[in-house]
């Protein structure tokens, strides 16, 4: 196995593998209705997340999911007060939706936590998408950190002028808050777009057919293995769901 230095099995997987797993999971969970295949998928997806070995992240994510579960149960409890008939359907029906959410969380966490903004550009290149998708997606990734920085500067400049952006100002002065935040950010982004457009014209982007990449991403043995395992479990769970097994 050809693991990159310091990376565990899951971390070393090609980003495309992680994307395929996430997409397959999001499609499978909406088909499956039976508890047993959902539990199987939850177990295998949790194992996948566990192999990522970011235990703190796993703990906090599950704590958050549990909190959301309690919040939803609380909302449903209020609904039950209004519609008492619901109680007769049992607690299990409240449980299944959260199994689905947990499966989705397990697969997307691995994808999101291991994808750094700086690596995403090489990922985009490796996806071999057309230039008209590649360029705006690249620009979007490039400007996410820039706009975080710009926003910080705008907020600080407002702070200096005596306008704090917080829940109170947003709640009681939404119109002024929108304007104070909105105008500088829009103007900045329009100017940025103009500057970058000029730079891209001058560099001749979009006039050449092929895009090459110095950061090569290639499928390796672990990618094929884990995709095979994923397909197997999805087929198994579907067969169980439709009582074909």
């Amino acid at each position: 196995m050809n693991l990159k230095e310091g990376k565990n099995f899951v971390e070393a997987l090609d980003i495309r593998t992680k994307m395929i797993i996430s997409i397959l999971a999001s499609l499978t969970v909406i088909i499956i209705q039976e508890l047993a295949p959902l539990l199987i998928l939850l177990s295998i997806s949790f194992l996948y997340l566990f192999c990522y070995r970011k235990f703190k992240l796993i703990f906090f994510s599950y704590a958050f999911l549990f909190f959301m579960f309690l919040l939803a149960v609380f909302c449903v409890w209020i609904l039950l007060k209004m519609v008492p008939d619901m109680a007769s359907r049992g607690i299990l029906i409240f449980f299944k939706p959260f199994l689905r959410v947990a499966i989705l969380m397990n697969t997307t966490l691995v994808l999101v936590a291991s994808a750094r903004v700086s690596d995403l550009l090489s990922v985009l290149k490796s996806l071999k998408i057309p230039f008209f998708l590649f360029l705006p997606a690249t620009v979007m990734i490039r400007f996410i950190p820039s706009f975080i920085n710009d926003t910080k500067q705008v907020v600080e400049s407002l702070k200096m002028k005596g306008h704090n952006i917080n829940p109170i100002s947003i709640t009681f002065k939404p119109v002024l808050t929108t304007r104070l935040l909105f105008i500088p950010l829009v103007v900045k982004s329009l100017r940025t777009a103009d500057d970058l457009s000029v730079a891209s014209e001058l560099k001749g982007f979009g006039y050449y057919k092929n895009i090459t990449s110095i950061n090569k991403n290639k499928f390796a043995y672990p990618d094929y293995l884990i995709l095979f395992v994923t397909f197997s479990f999805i087929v198994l769970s579907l067969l169980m769901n439709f009582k074909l097994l």
Partner: protein
Amino acid sequence: MIKFKNVTYRYPFQEENAVNSISMHIKKGETVLCTGASGCGKSTLINLINGLAPHYFKGEIEGDVFVNGINNRDRKIYEISKDVGTLFQDPEHQFFTLNVKDELAFGLECKGVDEKIIEEAISKVEKDFFLTPIINSYIFHLSEGEKQKVALASIFLQKPSILILDEPSANLDIKSAKELAEKLAALKESGMTIFIVDHRLYWLKDIVDRVFILKEGNICEEGDFSIVEKKQKEYGLRSSFVCHSNKEEIVFKSFLKEGVDIENMSFFHKGDKTIFSSFNASIPSKKVVAIVGENGAGKTTFARILTGLNKLQDGKIYLKGESIKPKDLLKKSSLVLQNTDYQLHMKTVEEELEVCHKKEKEYTTTLLDFFGLKKFAKRHPQSLSAGQKQRVVIAAAIAKEPEILILDEPTSGLDGVNMDIVAKAIKNATSQGVSVFIITHDLELIEKCSTHILKIEKPNCTKSS
């Protein structure tokens, strides 16, 4: 190399021509400077050389521009860019990626150049431009000088024979400007033709062969570098030389208890090196203090501490002899950032000042008058010129009636006339009882309006404290 034959150009939706009947000839290996007041048509000349005008900006053109003997009308922008490389004022706006090596490779990757050739070209340029220590750095962690170097190297990878630079020194400190001048001299030596447009002129003295001075779209003067000095006042230019300031340095002797006193200030960013350690200073009130030092020395951090945006790890700050907490500093200070776009929020200039104070409307009118903005009161602030916008943000900062006013590079990209106006506005602020601090590399501005200098040097203390 570059030839203009009776060129007149007008941008779309504009009534007046940006340039009129320009004829000039720049020879191979020549380094030419083009200067003049804001809006005189300097940047249009750049756009005409690299083909952005009229291919990108559209508009109407008469006459012909030839680059390497080929008429720009017959080529598309990307074809012209094989001959002409353009470096803009803020190189970060030209970057498409987040790391230096990726940025260098990106232009070639988008052209489908083979990976091995790209790697070889990067290795070469890495050595030529001394980029090895920063080759894997995040672009946001680079200094302005380093960003310039990366942008220049990225252009160089496209192998142009002509290099044009649009206000390259606007964001550079003195040391970085000197380094850029040295690099340009080396490129000139290698036979490259260089066309520079800039307001700051002193750093170009030794590399420029010829100077064009533009006014209202016409070439009014042409000659060697000495004409800049002779014609400075006539065309509202910046100075052609910098004098070493003889302003009084802030030297800590004892606390004055009338302005800002800083006692044993210590500050470091989490997980980073110390920026200030047991720092003491005493700054008199109602004066203009220029904060100078290299990029990364801690000037901005000093300003953030003084405005209460950063909290001290140790030490105290006194205002008029009384100890003051960061949240109170926030109320009593104003900070004007370098980029005015971040600080203009409202629909009119008048409203921009009104949201900063709770006084009667007359106060706004007084301020508008004071800063020469009365005739723009109903204009949208974003539609003003750079110098006018700078005045609006200073007026808005003063509307808050702060006791401390800090300005970060207020004259970056401004011509001589606008710099004078900003300098006057700064001086006027002190007459309102404000202690003004200017973070700047602009020696002309320091000479014009500051009363004191505070030198902040790496790693962590003032030169004289």
